[in-house]
C-alpha cells in the first residue's frame, strides 16, 4: 500500500492523542487546572490534527458529512462517529476539570472507553480488509491499541507505566512484523487463483494493461526493498521503545529526557506506521505481478 503521509499522520497522531485522552479520562495522572489544560490541549491537537490530516486523503472532502451515516456496516463511519463522540465527551469532562475544577469521573471513564474504541475502529478500517492479508488479523487492533496506550502513557508522563508498556509495544510490533511476513502466503492468494489459470501452469504477467501508471498502482502497489525494510524495522524498534526506555531508566530523570524519549518514540511510531503501509501487500498487486 502507498504510504501516504496523510494516513500515516492521521493514524499516528490520532492514536497518540486518543491514547493520551484515555489516560486523562481515567484520571492517571490525576492532573487538574493548568496542567490538565496543557495535557488536554496536547491530546486534542494530536487527535484533531490527525483527523484533519486524514481529510487530505479524501478526493471530495465536501461530502465528508455523509461519513457519519453508515455506522451499521462501515468501520470508517464508526470511526468518524466514535472520534467525534470522544472529543465531545472528553470536551465536557475536560471543561469541567479545567475550568470548574470538577472531575466527573463517569464522564472520564466513558471518554476513555470511547477514545480506545476510536483507536479500535481505526484499527478495524485496516484489519477488516481481506485484500491486505498483513492487516487482516486481530493483531492489527492489538497493535494500534498498544501504540495508543503506551504512547499515551509516555505523553502523560507516566514513566514507570510507559517503560513497561513501551517494552510490551515493541514486543507486539516485532510479533506483528514476524507474523505479518507470512500472512500473504498463508492466505493462499496467488496470480494463479487471481486469474483462475493455475491448472494451465505457472502464470506470469507478460504485458500490463497500461504502460503508464494508474490509481491502483499508485495507491495499492508499493514495493519496498527487503534490506531497506529491515533497516527501517531496526530503527523503528529501537526508537519506538528500547531507546526511550533506556533514556527513562538509565539516565537521570528530567523533562529533557522525557521530551527526548517522546521525540524518539514519535520517530519510531512514524517509521513503524510508514512500514505498516509500505509493507502491506494488496492482492490486486497480483494482477500486475507486483507485490
Amino acid at each position, binding site marked *: 500500500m502507498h504510504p501516504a503521509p496523510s494516513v500515516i499522520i492521521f493514524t499516528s497522531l490520532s492514536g497518540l492523542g486518543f491514547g493520551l485522552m484515555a489516560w486523562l479520562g481515567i484520571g492517571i495522572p490525576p492532573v487538574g487546572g493548568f496542567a490538565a489544560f496543557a495535557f488536554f490541549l496536547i491530546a486534542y491537537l494530536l487527535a484533531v490534527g490527525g483527523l484533519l490530516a486524514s481529510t487530505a486523503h479524501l478526493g471530495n472532502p465536501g461530502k465528508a458529512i455523509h461519513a457519519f451515516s453508515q455506522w*451499521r456496516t462501515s468501520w470508517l463511519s464508526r470511526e468518524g462517529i466514535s472520534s467525534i463522540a470522544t472529543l465531545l465527551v472528553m470536551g465536557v469532562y475536560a471543561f469541567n476539570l479545567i475550568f470548574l475544577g470538577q472531575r466527573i469521573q463517569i464522564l472520564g471513564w466513558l471518554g476513555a472507553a470511547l477514545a480506545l474504541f476510536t483507536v479500535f475502529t481505526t484499527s478495524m478500517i485496516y484489519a477488516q480488509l481481506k485484500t491486505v492479508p498483513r492487516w487482516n488479523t486481530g493483531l492489527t487492533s492489538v497493535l494500534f491499541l498498544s501504540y495508543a496506550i503506551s504512547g499515551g502513557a509516555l505523553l502523560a508522563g507516566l514513566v514507570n507505566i510507559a517503560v513497561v508498556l513501551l517494552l510490551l509495544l515493541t514486543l507486539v510490533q516485532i510479533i506483528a512484523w514476524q507474523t505479518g511476513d507470512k500472512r500473504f502466503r498463508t492466505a493462499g492468494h496467488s496470480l494463479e487463483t487471481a486469474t483462475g489459470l493455475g491448472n494451465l501452469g505457472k502464470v506470469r504477467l*507478460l504485458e500490463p*494493461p*497500461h*504502460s*503508464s501508471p*494508474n490509481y491502483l498502482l499508485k495507491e495499492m502497489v508499493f514495493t519496498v526493498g527487503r534490506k531497506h525494510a529491515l533497516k527501517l524495522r531496526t530503527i523503528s524498534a529501537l526508537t519506538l521503545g528500547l531507546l526511550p526506555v533506556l533514556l527513562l531508566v538509565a539516565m537521570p530523570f528530567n523533562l529533557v529526557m522525557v521530551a527526548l524519549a517522546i521525540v524518539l518514540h514519535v520517530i519510531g511510531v512514524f517509521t513503524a506506521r510508514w512500514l505498516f503501509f509500505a509493507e502491506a501487500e494488496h492482492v490486486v498487486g497480483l494482477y500486475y505481478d507486483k507485490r
Partner: protein
Amino acid sequence: MPPYDQPALDTSPEVSEEIRKTTCYMCACRCGINVHMKNGKVKYIEGNRDHPVNRGVLCAKGSSGIMTHYAPSRLRAPLKRVGERGEGKFEEISWDEALELATSWLKPLRETAPEKLAFFTGRDQSQSFTGWWAQAYGTPNYAAHGGFCSVNMAAAGIYTMGGSFWEFGQPDWERTKLFMIFGVAEDHDSNPIKMGLNKLKETGAKIIGVNPIRSGYNAIADEWVGITPGTDGLFILALIHELLKAGKVDLDYLLRYTNAPFLVNDNEGSAEHGLFLRDENDRPQVLDRATGQPVAFDTPGIKPDMAGTYESDGVTYRPVFQLLAEKYLTDDHAPERVAEQCGISADRIRRIAAELAHVAFEQEIVIEQPWTDWKGERHDRMIGRPVSFHAMRGISAHSNGYQTCRALHILQILLGSVEVPGGFRFKPPYPKPVEAHPKPHAGVTPGQPLDGPHLGYVRGPEDLLLDENGNAKRIDKAFTWENPMSAHGLMHMLISNAHAGDPYRIDTLFMFMANMSWNSSMNTSKVIDMLKDKDENGEYVIPRIIYSDAYSSEMVAFADLVLPDTTYLERHDCISLLDRPICEADGMADSIRWPVIEPDRDVRGFQSVLLDIGARLGLPGMVNEDGSPKYKDYADYIVNHERRPGIGPLAGFRGKDGKGKGRGEPNPNQIEAYKENGGFWIDHIPDEAVFYKPWNQAYQDWAVARGLYDTPQPYVFQLYVEPMQKFRLAAQGHGDIQPPEHLRAQVERVMDPLPIWYPPFEGTLVDEKEYPYTALTQRPMAMYHSWGTQNAWLRQIHGANPLYVSGEICDEHGFKPGDWARVTSVHGSITVPVVRMDALNGKTMWTWNAIGKRSGAWALDEKASEATRGFLLNHIIHELLPPRGDGMRWNNSDPVTGQAAWFDLRVKIENIGPKADGISEPHIPPQVSPVGKGPRNVAYGEEF
C-alpha cells in the same frame, strides 16, 4: 434492519440528439460507424450493426475516435517552413498563398521535366484518385505504401490466382473446419478476422497459428507453430511434399481450374524453354487424354492428361503438374530436411499435412446448388474442401516473401480449397486475372499526361520500365531487373534514391499521410539526415518537400510547405471499387465518409486540395474547356467523375433515378443516398454465383452487369507463372531485353515459375554466428495503423514499447527484469528495455511497431514516454543490404517485387543491465511543435 434504500436512477437518459453514419479511418478495415452527436459535438462512436465489414463491433482505435478527432496535435492552417528542415519552425500562411506556392513549384516542372515531381501517398485510401491525378500531371513517380507493406502477398496472389487475402478475399468463416493463419501481426485485417475467429470457435473449427510470436490471434489458436522467421516457405513446401507423396491433392480441381495440365516446353537451352505450348490463337495447350493430342486448355468436354508427355519436332512438352511434382517430391522438401531450420519437428509437419488432407478430403462439404461453368458444363452441386488459410506481412516482408506467398497459394490450390465452400473466397472486384490488370507505365511527355497507369503487372521483360540505356525510369526503380514485378512501387527507396540521385535527381517530393521521416522508413536516423542534407551550394539535396497530414507528425517537421488535412470525421471520402473496397465474399460493397462535423480550423481535405492544385495547373480532366475548375471539391468528383462511361468512384445508387447498381450515369443525389443508407451500399451476389467465381458463368455475367469487368474474364489458376519464366529466359541470355550482368544470376534464381525457398538475404550476407537472432515488429491491436495521432486514451495502453526477448535468449544472456539491452545489427545499434517472453520462437525478439515517437511530435510533452523509453527498430534496419564489395547499392527488398524485407533483420544482443536515465537510444533531438503541447488534463464528456 431498515428497508433497503437506494437512490433513484434515470436508466433511460438521452443518448444523443442525432446519429450520423460514416466510415472509420483508424486502419484499413474501414468499418461503419455511428457517430452520436450532441450539442454540436461528438458524444459517442459505435460500430454500425448494418455494415458488412464490422456488423456493429468496433475496435479499440475506432472506439477512441473522439480523442483522435479532438486531438491537440491537429494542424490548424497551412504552414511554410521558416527554420531549417527538421526543426519544426513554421509560419502560418493562407490557403491562397499555400496553393499559389505549390502551383509555382509544380507548374514549371510539368512543362519541362514532370518526372522531377515524386508524388507518394502512404496510407492513402484514395489511390484511384491520387493515381489519376499523378497520371494527369505526367510524372511516372507515383505510388502508395504497398511496397513497404505487403506487395508480396498481393502480387503473388494476383499472379497465382487473381487475388489474394484481405481486401481480395477471405476464408469461408461459416463453413471452414480447419483454418491456418500465417504471420498475421494482429492486423490485416482487424475486426473481420476477430469476428471470423469467433465464428470458428462457435463451430468448433480448429485454428492453427503459424507465427514466431504467440500473441493476439496466435494466443487463441488451438495450435501454435512457433516457426523460425523467414522459413515459412520451407515449411509450406514440406507440407506440399507430404501431400503430393500421399496423393492427397484434388486432381479434378487441378484439371479443371488450374494450369496443372498445361504443356510446358522442356527443351532446356532454347528460347522457348519453360514456356507453354500454344496454338495459333495463342491459347495454351493441354494433352487430351482421349486422343493423346494437344488441344486448347478451354476446349469444352475434354479430359486433360497430366501423366503423359507430348513430343513434337524433337521437343518434349510436359504438363505443369509433372514439373511441380518432380520439384517438390525430392528429399530436399522432406520434413526431416527442413525441421531444424524451421524449428518445427518433422513429425509435426507430417501431422499437420495429414490433418489438412483429412479435413479437405474426408470432411468435404456439399451445397445443393447447381451452377454452370464458363465452358457451359452444368454442375449439380457445389463441393467444398473446408480448409482455409490467411496470411499477411509475417510471411511477405522477407526477401523470399513473394515465393513464400506463392507457395501458400499453391498449397491452397492443390487442396482444391480456393473459391469453394469452406475454403478461401474472393471478394469482388476479385477474382481478376493478371490479364485484367494494367501493365505499368512511365512514358513521360513534358506538359502532357503519362501514357497510362503507373502501377500494374508485368507480363515479361518488355514491360519493364527501363530507358534505352537500361536505367530505371522511376525514382524508386520499380519494374527494373532488381525487382521486376514491383506492382506497388518501392516507397521505402524513394528518399534514399532521391538523395543519392540514383537513377536521377528530383525537384519536389510531394507526400500525403506517409511518416517517412519516422516509422514508415527503414534506417530512420539516416533518412532524417538525407532529408536535411545540403549540397555544396547550400541547397537541400532534395530541393522541395510538400507534405499533407492532419496532425503534427514527425514528417511535418521536414516539409517546406505543409497542407493541413482534416480529421476523418470532417471529410468526404469514397471507399471505392476502383480502389480498395469493402466487399464481402457474398457481395460487392462500397462506402463513403462525409463531414459529420465541420472543421473548426483552417484545414481542407487533401483530395479537394489536390483537385484545386490540379485545376490551377490546368490538368486534363480537372478543368473545363474554359479553364475553370471542373470539380468544386472531392465530393463533387466522387459523384460526377466517370472512369469509364457509367462507371464512377461509387457503384451504388447510380443513374438519375438512383437505382443503378455498378453502372449508370452520375446521380447528383448519390451522396445523400449513401448517407440515408448508413454510409455504404451493398449488392449481394446471386446464390448460383457465390462460389467458383473465376469459372462460374453466372458470376462472370453478374460481374459484367455490375461493371466489375466489361467482358467476362474466366481464367485458370497459375500454379506455374509463365511470365516469371520469361524473365528467367532473359537472364539466361534470350531476347532483346536482358538483365545487366550483376543481376543475371539473381534473376535466374529467384524468377522460378514454381515456388522456391531461399534463405532471407540479410542472413546470408552477415555472419550468422555473430548475428544469431531475428528481430521483428508487429502492431498492437490497439494502435495498429493509428496514423491519426498519439491518442490520449490509447497512449495510456501502449505509451512505450519494450523489446520482448525469448526465454532462451534471456537465459543465455542472463536478462533479469529491469535490464536493458544493446541490440546490434550489421547497420547499427539501439539500446532498449527488455521484457522476457517464453511463448516466442527461441531465436527471436520483437517489439511493438511505431510506438516510439520523436520528442516534440504529436503535441506530446518532450518527455513523453514514447520519446524516452519508446523506440523504433527501424534505426537498425537498412534500406540497403550490407555491401557485397561490388560497389552496388543492393536494396533490402524482395528481388521479385521489391517488397521491403523488414523481417529479414539479423541481430546480436548484449545485456547492459538497468539503464539509469531510462532513455532508449538513439534519441533524436526534439522538433519544435507547430501546434504547441496538448492540455495537461482531459475530462471529455463533462458538457453532456
